[in-house]
């Protein structure tokens, strides 16, 4: 593009972004009451029907999370990072996306996968240690759950940019933790997205801890949403335990992205109720009184109060939701009884699309070794029989 001679290209062209208010946006308060529209930042409270749907998904997701944590305590999974307490963020993220949109989750976001339709068995494949990741990415339009922090944010920006280049309307949404925003990749993702005006939404679940490190040792700004200013994109500071607000804001951000309005950063302020993973010991670094206080801000209970107050959460509905949740828990337990057939020779199969002689040799070596072991074992069995 030709440059007119101006003092700075950006001062004239870049948008003025206002710093978000220091109180998180909420549409339903702790007590389950709808906040006054004048304080709702221009966002409308979703309809009771939508909220009831979100409620159902949150209850089901929590049941899954609790079930998987229990299985992990029994030693049946290698690890499981729980999202208990973060259901409002996770479910709002998924509910805001269309079928063709893509989700870029982390290790913590199993319930987002569940909500988007990934079968429990496929979610748990990696946590059971069967394979590094185990679902159908293109069917669900979900990237593999990322472990190296913030790296997936760049993948989301790339996919969104590709969608834009192709003239499609696919939006990408990526989930990030508060800690992950400190990584260089988070910065590069925010900046590439803003410069390329990629249709992407960054949803930071600020659960206030990165393993043991609390937010104030992670960053010195007021809110994570403040960071958006430095990229020239809108930032939203939202009560991450209010699914109504999360859904309203994330949906709007997705719409903006889809309509060519570029990226947004949404911070959901929440709290990690469980340990980081089963191998973590949170008593070493935080007071249980904090956890207790946050228990009082539970995203499900809050919505429940509201739904009861507006009369859509009937006993029948409740029973039906409980049934769905229990069925899922049962299915989850049941899938653990099926031992996945793992073929060690598959180790060599997917490393490259182009076959390699050396890998074929190694595959044969392992096949031979296994056959010999089996033969030896059979012989021992035969002898002892």
């Amino acid at each position, binding site marked *: 593009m030709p440059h007119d001679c101006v003092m700075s290209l950006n001062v004239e062209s870049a948008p003025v972004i206002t710093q978000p208010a220091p109180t998180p946006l909420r549409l339903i308060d702790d007590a389950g009451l709808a906040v006054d529209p004048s304080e709702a930042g221009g966002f409308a409270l979703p309809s009771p029907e939508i909220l009831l749907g979100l409620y159902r998904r949150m209850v089901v997701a929590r049941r899954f999370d609790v079930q998987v944590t229990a299985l992990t305590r029994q030693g049946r999974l290698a690890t499981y990072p729980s999202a208990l307490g973060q259901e409002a963020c996770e479910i709002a993220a998924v509910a805001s996306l269309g079928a063709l949109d*893509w989700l870029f989750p982390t290790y913590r976001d199993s319930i987002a996968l569940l909500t988007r339709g990934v079968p429990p068995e496929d979610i748990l494949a990696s946590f059971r240690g069967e*394979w*590094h*990741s*185990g679902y*159908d*990415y*293109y069917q669900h339009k979900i*990237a*593999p759950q990322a472990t*190296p922090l913030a*790296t997936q*944010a*760049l*993948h*989301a*920006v*790339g*996919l*969104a*940019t*590709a*969608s*834009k*280049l*192709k*003239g499609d309307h*696919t939006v*990408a949404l990526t989930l990030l933790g508060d800690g992950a925003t400190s990584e*260089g*990749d988070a910065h*590069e*993702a925010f*900046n*590439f997205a803003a*410069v*390329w*005006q*990629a249709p992407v939404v960054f949803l930071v679940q600020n659960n206030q801890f990165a393993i043991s490190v609390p937010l104030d040792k992670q960053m010195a700004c007021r809110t994570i949403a403040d960071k958006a200013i430095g990229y020239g994109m809108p930032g939203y500071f939202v009560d991450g335990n209010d699914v109504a607000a999360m859904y309203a804001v994330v949906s709007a951000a997705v719409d903006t992205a889809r309509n060519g309005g570029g990226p947004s950063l949404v911070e959901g302020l929440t709290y990690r109720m469980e340990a980081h993973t089963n191998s973590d010991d949170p008593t070493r670094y935080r007071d249980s009184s904090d956890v207790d206080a946050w228990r009082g801000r539970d995203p499900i209970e809050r919505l429940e109060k509201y739904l009861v107050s507006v009369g859509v959460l009937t006993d029948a509905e409740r029973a039906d939701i409980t049934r769905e949740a229990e069925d899922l828990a049962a299915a989850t337990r049941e899938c653990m009884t099926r031992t996945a057939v793992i073929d060690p020779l*598959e180790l060599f*199969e*997917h*490393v*490259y*699309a*182009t076959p*390699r*002689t*050396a890998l074929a040799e190694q595959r044969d070596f392992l096949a031979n070794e296994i056959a010999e072991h089996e033969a030896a074992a059979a012989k021992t069995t035969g002898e002892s029989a």
Partner: protein
Amino acid sequence: MTAHNSTTHTGTAAPATRPAAPMTMAAALNAAIRDAMVDDPSVVLFGEDVGPLGGVFRVTDGLYAEFGETRVSDSPLAESGIIGTAIGMAIYGLRPVVEMQFDAFSYPAFEQIVSHVAKMRNRTRGRIQLPIVIRIPYAGDIGGVEHHSDSSEAYWAATPGLTGVTPSNPADAYSMLREAIASDDPVIFMEPKSRYWSKAELALPVRTAPMNQAVVVREGADVTLIAYGPTVKTAIATAELASEEGLSIEVIDLRSLSPFDDETVSASVRKTSRAAVIHEAAQFGGYGAEVAARLTERNFYYLSAPILRITGFDIPYPSPKLEEYFLPTPDRILAALGTWEWS
């Protein structure tokens, strides 16, 4: 990046066979990218200064003008960002060709390359492929200041999941880059900077040996010299010098560092019974170690002498006025061969 108004993403003219013309390696690489972009609308190009400037080595010269912002674009200055976004584009079906401006500036992208580019296909049981080409101008002998002459091939070669190739001449540059762009595997495409201005007569689209094969570029009977990228020229010069002294040297251009073409190289070593590998990178832990180790494993009883490594010293790449002492020269190679017991 701006979206195109139209849905066509192709360039202006389809590549046909063109008359032979003298061409530098830089021009051959440029033609390869252009032809690939014309043939396949999913090929996109981005990186630092690859747009209007045409890259600091002019390898992407003219492509921005021809294909426009939709398919060729300058990215913000962040290498991890370049690789990370290329991954996302590849997931969506594009075939990104990206440039790391100089070898040492690929290091900020190390995590994206090693933890994602290399592992994505395996992680997803083959469901997600990443047909990405990462072009890295590498190696020295250009009088570059610090960080502009690294040979980083050992890092990539040690990483399962990556394919690593390096052309030594314009014909291979064209042919191998076309093949790399067409590959469904991610390819680290290492371009020897000191050979960018080397010339050859080429009738495009030229097709040389498949990119995963080594090539015997000069036949010989007594010694096999194994070289790649910038040192192929050195090895050939050595062979010429040696032939004056009655020593017949076979020169192999590896072309592919990962995979390694065991068949071609072992055949040569079995024939000559003596081999040396030549590279610019430091010796300790360098790529030559793999070459020497695997050839010895596979051909031990054919060898009359240990496989030698004639390489850079185990020090950081030196400043311009000292690089002549660092780089392997024909004299140094011949002297090294002279240390063998020749019974």
